[in-house]
């Protein structure tokens, strides 16, 4: 009797266990025993896309990486950030850069075999700009005629009928013939052609307009790579991309495909790189910053990227407006020892800032008038602070807000200490537990302190670092900065048809920013990464993503 009782218990346990195990093998076994390396497929790190793979509805790196591989836009960016024609044969501006005539190659095709026509661009852009769909990147179409921002027919703000986007097809887009269309802008934008390599401007095949949600789970593109068949996107695990043999654009694909493995932690990705399961890693975890260069030797990558970091002091804060504000902002900036902080806290993976853009962007400068305000100068800082005190004495604590979930504490504390030691005032970091919480307070303008800010460029143009951030009423102008002189220089630069002349004006505009310091430049973030022994020709692009198609594997 007793035996059978125990026996039954064990059988029951075993059965329960097998059930669980059986459930697993049904779900998980992707590719049993298949070596990750081999066969000319490059394995790279990534993260699960936060949104369906629709170009106009993806604004983060994880999904962007995939979209940039499976779609080809009118232009593409090379490793240096220069834009070259891809699907476009020519993009011609009119005399003040307010209208562009775009001609396409007639031999580009989507992977479902249909030709890439002017209509595919126009329809995709209209859909992306749609007020109804509210895609995350719809602000990219703001400048095109027909994109509306208003309080809707009832004339009241904050109601359901508010309009942000195109209610019907944008009037600025006209299809001339199968391979030609024109774009009319609300106001001149000399850098419009450079923007066109950003994912929001990719074309969509006809099938996408039938059911965009289904398309987002199984996108069909026209780029150097394509989704490697049904089920190639294993959510939260990986996505496999195959070389698109039909792609006939200017980018030559040197490998057979990509396997983008999604990691929840960069530490696991780094371990995989060391263990030989990963070929290319484009973000070194904080815990390895001090030693990755000695670990990887010449397979380590550490170069500037198009990421600008700063803190912003809203001008509505007491003591930070007018002449007093100008003095205080300059004093605070000069009290920060950027060189030491980038060395000690970031192990040399940041580059002290000398302007408001990034060294990888055409038009960057380290010799703008007034840039000395970004150098550590304790005496000058104290003098300026004293001058400001003479106008109105300082009281209280200078706080810099940051989100504690993003690894910012170390540098914020270092900056606060630098200020405290130099100026002899109380300065501390002000942590918010989550990114969402910090951003909500910033967006609602309820934040009562300075706060960390950063900008990763959408496209490699000087304007992208300035217009959206500091122009009066601009979308991401979190400090509500406004200076008519600055605005005038920006719009003058936007009307230039020559990029050099435009950049000169944008630099002049930055000199105003150096005086007003709406945001205080801190440093440019470097892209840190590494690659394995089996791959060669790994170059990191201007946007911190490796130039995948050029990587070879032996």
């Amino acid at each position, binding site marked *: 009797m007793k035996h059978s*009782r125990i026996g039954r218990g064990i059988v029951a346990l075993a059965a329960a266990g097998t059930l669980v195990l059986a459930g697993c093998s049904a779900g998980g076994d992707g590719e049993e025993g298949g070596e990750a390396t081999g066969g000319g497929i490059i394995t790279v790190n990534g993260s699960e896309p936060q949104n369906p793979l629709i170009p106009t509805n993806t604004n983060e790196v994880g999904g962007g990486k995939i979209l940039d591989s499976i779609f080809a836009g009118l232009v593409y960016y090379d490793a240096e950030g220069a834009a070259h024609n891809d699907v476009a044969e020519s993009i011609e501006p009119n005399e003040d850069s307010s209208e562009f005539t775009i001609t396409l190659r007639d031999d580009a095709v989507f992977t479902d075999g249909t030709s890439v026509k002017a209509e595919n661009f126009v329809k995709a852009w209209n859909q992306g700009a749609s007020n109804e769909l*509210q895609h995350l990147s719809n602000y990219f179409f703001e400048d095109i005629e027909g994109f509306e921002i208003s309080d809707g027919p009832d004339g009241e703000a904050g109601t359901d009928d*508010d309009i942000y986007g195109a209610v019907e097809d944008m009037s600025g887009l006209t299809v001339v013939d199968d391979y030609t269309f024109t774009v009319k802008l609300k106001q001149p934008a000399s850098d419009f052609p450079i923007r066109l390599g950003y994912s929001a401007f990719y074309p969509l095949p006809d099938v996408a307009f039938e059911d965009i949600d289904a398309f987002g789970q199984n996108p069909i593109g026209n780029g150097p790579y394509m989704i490697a068949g049904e089920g190639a996107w294993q*959510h939260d695990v990986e996505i496999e991309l195959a070389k698109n043999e039909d792609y006939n654009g200017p980018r030559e694909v040197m490998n057979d495909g990509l396997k983008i493995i999604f990691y929840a932690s960069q530490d696991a990705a780094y371990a995989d790189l060391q263990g030989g399961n990963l070929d290319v890693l484009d973000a070194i975890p904080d815990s390895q910053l001090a030693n990755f260069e000695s670990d990887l030797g010449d397979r380590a990558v550490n170069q500037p990227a198009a990421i600008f970091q700063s803190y912003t002091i809203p001008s509505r804060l007491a003591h930070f407006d007018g002449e007093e504000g100008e003095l205080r902002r300059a004093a605070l900036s000069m009290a920060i020892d950027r060189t030491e902080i980038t060395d000690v806290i970031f192990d040399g993976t940041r580059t002290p800032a000398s302007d408001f853009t990034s060294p990888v962007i055409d038009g960057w400068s380290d010799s703008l008038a007034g840039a000395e305000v970004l150098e550590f100068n304790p005496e000058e800082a104290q003098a300026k602070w004293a001058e400001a005190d003479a106008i109105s004495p300082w009281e209280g604590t200078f706080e810099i807000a940051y989100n504690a979930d993003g690894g910012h504490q170390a540098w914020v504390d270092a900056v606060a200490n630098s200020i405290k030691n130099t100026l002899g005032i109380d300065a501390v970091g002000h942590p918010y537990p989550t990114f969402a919480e910090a951003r909500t307070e910033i967006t609602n303008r309820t934040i009562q302190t300075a706060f960390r800010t950063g900008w990763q460029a959408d496209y490699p143009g000087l304007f992208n670092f300035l217009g959206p951030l500091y122009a009066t009423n601009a979308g*991401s102008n979190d400090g509500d900065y406004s200076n008519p002189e600055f605005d005038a220089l920006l719009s003058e630069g936007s009307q230039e048809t020559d990029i050099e002349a435009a950049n000169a004006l944008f630099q002049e505009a930055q000199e105003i920013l150096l005086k007003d310091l709406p945001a205080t430049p801190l440093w440019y973030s470097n892209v840190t990464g590494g690659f394995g022994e089996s791959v060669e020709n790994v170059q990191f692009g201007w946007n911190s993503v490796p130039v995948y198609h050029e990587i070879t594997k032996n």
Partner: protein
Amino acid sequence: MLRYIIFRILQVIPVLLGTTFLIYFMVFAMPGDPIVAMFGDKTPNPIVLEKLRAQYNLDKPFFVQYLLYLKGIFVGDFGVSFSGQPVSDILARTFPVTGLLAVMAIAIEFFLAIVIGLFSGLRKGGVFDNVSLIVGLLLMSLPIFVVAFIGQYFLTIQWSIFRTTVGSNVSFYNMLLPAIVIGITLFATSMRLTRASVIDTMNQDFVRTAYAKGLPRRRVVPVHILRNSLIPTVTNSAANFGVLLVGATVTEAIFNVPGVGNTLYQAILRGENSTVVSFVTVMVLFYLGVNLIVDLLYAVLDPRIRYA
């Protein structure tokens, strides 16, 4: 027995309502707007914000949101994540993976606890007993990520015995290292419980009777001593199973296991109410189920325990 089981299953209903409500409330009360965070450092237009909030029911009052969620569950709809996937798909994908990891880890823990605990108990105060006590304490006091990193570094990167991370290659062998890591950081408590219980049982009358009857040691030890010493070990291991479902996050992140911990962590960061609540609900169900099985096992292990 059957009445007892039905009663226990009915108990699940109020517990579930209570937990979903609490969790939903906590996620709701989390400060910050998840939609704002979707835009990174860029500031979204207020009109865009409002429309996206409406899409995820975030513009409605707490009770309305919660009732809408409950209504969805009744028709088998757990909602969709921000990436447009049905939450039920995510559940079906991640739970078996974490389940496998947990079962393997518990099996390792249980095996180590019983074998080592039994031998320690039988030779109380001996060399083996003392060594196992020290080793057990040492492993118990090490944080799990330390064990995981050390294991990962030496066993995968240096000696290439296991795969560094799991990723898409979910298989028994690839999950072994993470399971061992969890198992050895957990086994010490169960091991001590088994040991104490074995020592206690050895002095019971029925053991003495068994020996007096002339039964051999190889029969007395497994049947009379071990079986009657298992209850505390089983209870502790079952409690660990619940802890594991939630607490595997660290291990899952280190070994990139596509399971519950990793996914739940990301969902919490993104403030995806429906994903978070659904995950926790299923975890609670699991935990209750395991505890029910354990309670029933008591009766199997010790006939003196009866449920009516």
